[in-house]
Structures are given as structure tokens and as C-alpha cells.
């Protein structure tokens, strides 16, 4: 049997209870988590192929727009490398993204922000990493928006990311933020991550090298999924 996955670093990851993010108060488990080495049930996972994708799945500017129309907002390309903790690219990783429109409004029945919907923007997209673990998609830069938490909390502009590696143990949902956003240090949700270096890991820098002249700016967002332990000498506990 191959070595199991490296344990999640709970000092680097946000804790479950982060009272400044109020909803966590009644939704955070309070008892100790049960630890055990991963088994085949967690070391396997659904496999996705490029054949599941439609031609506009990774183009949020056009995938909900009327023919000939496009979403309103600053045009951007988001690209990056999905690798594991051992530095190996993760091929065929499904990435699903969702976001607010350029005015900071989501297309959702529970969304009440006064900013208008964009009839040509749905806000969802997906792609699958190539054989080296690289991905890219095209969208518009989402707007910041207010949310009911503290008396005057605003989310920094962000894109939600959901990732499947090859193993269910690697399943991850996170958010990408934009370099230079002054709301970043004020955000109770990003603030759930305690280590400033870990906060920094979620901030994508502008990438002029990938920017398309007269068309779209580019941001680079690399993502690290859990990796397997590397030793050939696996301990086996008695009775396990």
C-alpha cells in the first residue's frame, strides 16, 4: 500500500471557531476531531476528464451571455499551477469557480445587495488541469460587497475555488484574493486564517507576462493540495 497523506496542518489552516466571522459560532464542531491514517476510501476519489468540459466552461465572460454579448467588468485571465505538497503538478484536477459580478452582486435568490445583476453574467465556471497541473480561465474582476456580519463588513474582491485532486482527502474549497485590495486586512473571513503567511498564500499577484495587450489583465493563483508522505518506511501500528 502506498504511504498515506501528510496530515493537515491545523496551525496553518483556519480553526473551526472564528468568532469575528459570526456564522462560525453555531456551525463549528466543538469536540476533538478523530484522527486516523488515510485508507483507500480517502486516498481515491472521482476522476474527471477534459471531455466533460464544454467550450465556454472556462470563459465566464461569455458562458452565460447572449450571443454576441459579454459580461460587464474588467476583463481578466486567472491562471496558475495546481501541485501537491511534494511539488508535483496535479493533472486532471477539476477546478470549479464562482464569483460576484463586477458590481459585487451574486446571481442567487438569497442575495439582496442593491448592486444590479448583469444579464450577461452567470458567475460560474470550471476547468480541468492539464498534464502538468496548469489551468486558466477567463472572467471579469468581481466587485467588493457588503455583508451582514459586523455593522459594516465588506468582502474584498474574491473568486471562490473548489478543487478535486485524485484523492478525496485532497478535497479543498478556498478563495482567491487580488493583490493590493485594501479590504484584505479587514476581512473576518480571510482573518479566520491566523498566520499572515497563510493569508498571503491566497492573494494572487498581477501577472503582466500573461496579460493580453489591449484585452485582459492576468492574475496568477497557484494552489497546493495535500501530498503523500514520501518515506518508503511506513510504520504500521499494532492492530491497524
Amino acid at each position: 500500500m502506498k504511504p498515506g497523506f501528510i496530515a493537515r496542518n491545523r496551525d496553518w489552516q483556519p480553526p473551526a471557531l472564528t468568532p469575528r466571522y459570526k456564522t462560525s459560532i453555531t456551525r463549528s464542531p466543538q469536540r476533538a476531531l478523530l484522527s486516523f491514517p488515510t485508507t483507500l476510501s480517502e486516498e481515491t476519489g472521482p476522476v474527471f476528464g477534459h471531455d466533460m468540459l464544454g467550450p465556454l466552461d472556462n470563459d465566464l465572460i461569455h458562458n452565460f451571455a447572449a450571443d454576441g454579448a459579454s459580461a460587464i467588468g474588467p476583463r481578466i485571465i486567472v491562471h496558475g499551477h495546481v501541485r501537491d505538497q511534494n511539488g508535483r503538478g496535479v493533472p486532471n484536477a477539476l477546478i470549479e469557480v464562482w464569483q460576484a459580478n463586477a458590481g459585487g452582486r451574486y446571481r442567487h435568490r438569497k442575495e439582496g445587495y442593491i448592486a444590479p445583476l448583469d444579464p450577461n453574467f452567470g458567475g460560474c465556471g470550471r476547468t480541468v488541469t492539464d498534464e502538468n497541473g496548469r489551468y486558466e480561465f477567463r472572467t471579469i474582476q468581481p466587485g467588493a460587497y457588503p455583508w451582514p456580519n459586523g455593522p459594516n463588513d465588506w468582502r474584498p474582491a474574491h473568486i471562490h475555488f473548489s478543487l478535486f485532486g485524485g484523492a478525496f482527502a485532497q478535497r479543498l474549497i478556498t478563495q482567491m484574493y487580488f493583490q493590493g485590495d485594501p479590504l484584505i486586512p479587514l476581512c473576518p473571513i480571510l482573518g479566520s486564517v491566523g498566520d499572515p503567511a497563510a493569508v498571503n498564500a491566497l492573494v494572487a499577484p498581477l501577472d503582466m507576462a500573461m496579460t493580453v495587450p489591449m484585452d485582459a489583465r492576468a492574475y496568477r493563483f497557484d494552489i497546493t493540495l495535500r501530498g503523500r508522505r514520501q518515506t518508503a518506511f511506513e510504520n504500521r501500528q499494532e492492530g491497524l
Partner: protein
Amino acid sequence: MDLNDTNGQESPSQTAGPYVHIGCTPNASGIKGVWAQDLGSAMVDKDTSGDRITIRGSVIDGTGAALTDTLVEIWQADAGGICGANDPRGPGDPHFSGFGRSAGDMETGEFRFDTIRPGPVPSRDGGLQAPHITFWIVARGINTGLHTRLYFPEDTAAHANDPILSRIEHRSRIPTLIAKSEGAGVYRFDIRLQGEDETIFFDI
């Protein structure tokens, strides 16, 4: 500190937020036509091997209220105990995806999976684990996705030898991982985030 440097650590998790359904089940959230079918909405077809089962349940917060903005995913072995296309023991049932995803009912939050009873999966020592289904729960207010497992109420003998259940120090909490039978092939599995009956969540 370079921006976006994860220092060899797993990228930090962030809550899925209140609008996770836009990205993960757009059709269920009312965004039609971007792609035809929501991922994980159909686990079986007419040729899938195994006993058909239905699993229903709610995710319940510390006040006793069912969440209506959660996304629940499951991952399981096929009837022969093979876990999908990258199981090294290879090929499983081509008519079974093993992966289910439920946005929950938009009013009540109740999730539902129509699947098959999984076969047993080996443990690390080569023995067999009791049949189980892996659950992963995300929602607004949950900073890192929660892993747990469903076991079946009729497998009492297998539970006694299961290496994961055997690890649980507080034996009175084991029933939080065992579904309740609601008739032939129908199970209820409520997940409690806090309180007396808090579900056992895993650090795996």
C-alpha cells in the same frame, strides 16, 4: 513574503460561503444553460450492480436548525468494494460513479442520494473495513470542509472489527456515525455540527 507562496503547505481553506451552489450545482441554484447537468446528481444508471439505497438527512447547527445553504458530497465504493477509476485494485463498475453531490432542498435543506450499498474496502493492514460512505460537508460558517462517514445499522458485527470505529474513545458517540433505517433500502443520516449529539468529524 511573496504573494501566493504556500511555503509547501496545503493552500488554506476558506468557507464555501452562502453561494456555493452557484459554482457547484448551478442548475439547482437556477443558473441554467452553462452546463447541462450538475456534477454528482446521478450516481447510478439502470445497469449499476448492487442494492439500491436512498440516503436522506439534514445538517443541523448548534441551535438545532437545519442548514439550507450547505453542500454535501459523498464518495463510496461500488458493490464490489472498488473505489473508482484510480483504485489500484482496478476497474470497478463502469455504471457507478461513486460520487454524489447534493445542494439540499432549497426550503428544508434536506439532502438526498440515490445510490447503492457499498462493498467493504480494505483497511491499511489488509483486513476489511465495515461498509461505509465518506461524507464531506461545506457551508457558510464552516471554515474547512468536514469529513465524516456513514455506517449502516445492520452491520453490527462488522462494526465491532472496524479499525476506525475501534479508535473512538468515547463509545457513546459511535451512533452519530450510524444511519437510521427508515424502511427497506432507505436510511436517514443527520449530521450535527454541535451539541450533545455532535457528529464525529475526522482529521484525515
